[in-house]
């Protein structure tokens, strides 16, 4: 409690600069959101797919191929696994040999697919699963092929117009996405800055030496310091969430909104662990601004917090996977393109959540190792 109480007192001393920093970043976030209102970034991100048609391309098979071609870029590739690895295609669909015949004879032939597991891939998966669902409904009632095709296409058309008009608020979702993408920078920068400034007070060489000489368990000391910081982190997250409700309330009060919020929470915790890690060895207050710029600004830019990452060179897109920001922003992007959040989308979202969670654990472990070393280290 001593550490927490003192943390608050010191926080109080720095509150003006902390508030100023936070407000400026928040204003930028709002500005960024407004700025990108008209950009239809989801148009530019049509996924690439490859369809391996082993069946004769007629009837139901052809209809499926046509349907997929209309909403994705169908490309040709030489080596499927290479293409997937290098993200030349996001999704590879294999239509087996007797697919159409089996369908018409009442069997349930399966379509194989491989995917890159990113948000473009899950978009294709979404389309495919939707199509197959509708197809199976009509096949069981209508036995004739041409009628089935007509009915499928009719429903697909209807559904598309229906969702475009009422259900999918692309405008709001894009705004929310822009806002939360920018929050990537604001939260990361805000946390690194504040945590490092406040921790450098406790980790001042002389103060730390005095702390080590005391009977305060050094581990408890670090945990108390981390918990104190996490209160600030949660406040910061809460502030961003609160403002998103003011700005795009209709989106935030939907499942999409809850996912945005949870995604941001997880990212806030990862940012906290990164900030705490940096704060545990950074003693020089002057260096903090530089670190904030390099880490927060750098990773935010590279991972697409400010501009869509499709503009960045391909090689960069692989490297940026080492940043938690990438996975956070991928989730934001995915959410903004999802019409309905179905099981496959949730799978992708949770896959990214898991990666973020591992980042959190990774940095906590790293900090713990460092602090153990620090305790044994000579202090003079």
């Amino acid at each position: 409690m001593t550490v927490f109480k003192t943390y608050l007192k010191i926080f109080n001393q720095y509150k003006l600069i902390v508030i100023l920093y936070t407000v400026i970043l928040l204003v930028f976030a709002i500005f960024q959101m407004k700025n990108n209102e008209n950009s239809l970034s989801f148009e530019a991100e049509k996924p690439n797919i490859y369809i391996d048609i082993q069946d004769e391309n007629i009837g139901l098979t052809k209809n499926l191929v046509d349907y997929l071609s209309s909403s994705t870029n169908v490309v040709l590739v030489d080596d499927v696994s290479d293409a997937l690895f290098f993200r030349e295609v996001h999704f590879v669909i294999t239509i087996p040999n007797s697919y159409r015949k089996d369908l018409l004879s009442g069997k349930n032939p399966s379509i194989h697919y491989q995917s890159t597991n990113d948000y473009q891939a899950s978009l294709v998966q979404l389309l495919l699963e939707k199509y197959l669902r509708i197809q199976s409904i009509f096949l069981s009632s209508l036995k004739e092929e041409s009628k089935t095709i007509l009915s499928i296409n009719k429903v697909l058309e209807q559904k598309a117009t229906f969702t475009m008009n009422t259900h999918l608020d692309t405008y709001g979702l894009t705004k929310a996405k822009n806002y939360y993408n920018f929050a990537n920078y604001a939260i990361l920068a805000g946390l690194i800055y504040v945590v490092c400034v406040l921790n450098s007070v406790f980790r001042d060489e002389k103060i730390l030496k005095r702390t080590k000489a005391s009977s305060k368990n050094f581990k408890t000391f670090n945990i108390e310091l981390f918990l104190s910081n996490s209160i600030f982190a949660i406040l910061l997250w809460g502030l961003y969430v609160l403002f998103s409700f003011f700005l795009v309330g209709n989106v935030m009060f939907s499942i999409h909104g809850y996912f945005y919020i949870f995604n941001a929470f997880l990212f806030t915790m990862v940012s906290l662990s990164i900030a705490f890690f940096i704060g545990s060895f950074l003693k020089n207050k002057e260096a903090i601004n530089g670190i904030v710029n390099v880490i927060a600004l750098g990773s935010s830019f590279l991972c697409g917090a400010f501009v869509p990452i499709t503009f960045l060179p391909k090689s960069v897109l692989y490297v940026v996977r080492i940043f938690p920001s990438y996975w956070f922003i991928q989730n934001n992007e995915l959410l903004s393109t999802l019409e309905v959040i179905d099981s496959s989308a949730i799978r992708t979202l949770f896959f990214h959540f898991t990666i973020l969670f591992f980042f959190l654990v990774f940095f906590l472990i790293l900090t713990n190792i460092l602090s153990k070393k620090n305790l044994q280290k000579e202090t003079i």
Partner: protein
Amino acid sequence: MRNIIEVNHLTKVYKNLRAVNDLSFEVKEGEILGLLGPNGSGKSTTINCILSLLTFQEGSIQVFGKPMTPTSYASRKKMGVVFQDVCVFDELTVFDNVDYFCGLYIQNSAVRKEYVEDAIALVGLQDFKKYTPKQLSGGLLRRLNIACGIAHKPQLLFFDEPTVAVDPQSRNNILEGIKILRDMGATIVYTSHYMEEVEILCDRIIILDKGKILASGTSDELKALAKIEEKITVEIIDLPKKYLDKISHFSNVQNVTYSNQVLHVVYKKGKNNLVELIDYFKKEKIKYNKIFSLRPTLNDVFLELTGKELRDS
């Protein structure tokens, strides 16, 4: 008296400098032990080794009968330290600073409040509780540093040169405070390069130089090592050389100098040296202004042992 600290053959080497060289000593319960030595003699290094803030190459250290490690929290609970450098939070007030450092040891907030008040009263900072360190003068800052180190009422206390660059008023306050702590039962290790302080404060003194113990004992025991009994200083307007020669041949005299109208006579031993000298002046009708005798100081001991002055280094 049981030993609170036992240091055996402690050796600490920095790169190629032997800061502490085969040091052995013990600190007994309830005493004030003084570590006296010039700057760089290894006083701080010794304390940091005892506190297990430094690793060392050879030797062993026991505190409260147990070896010290970085995680000896039970022993640390009974120990307090006032480092040479002031270490306080610039962001916190005097009260909050003492409260923080006391809080590292004492969880109960009611007890802690009382302890913090006691510590602030002991160093006489009652009127400055709401001040921040930047608003305090050097002496008051030192007193705050001390309050932070002693507030949890430890049984064993280290003071590392707490009076360096401190005004006389604060210095007296600090020395009085340390005596009060000893009287309340604390065992104290006190380092300084001011021999006068160590002499009036400490029950036992260890003289250090270049990481080695030169001598140890009570101040009287140490002075016996000086091999001089007393120094007599006389102000004389004019003293012809023949008298000087005469005086230097007195049986107990070790050394005589005369310069700037001041005569210094150093005696090896003997009793009535002053009377003997005054009688001689009367007999020869030599006029003098002031005459006084000084007992040897620890500086003389240091001079005797190392051939250099303690105060100059």
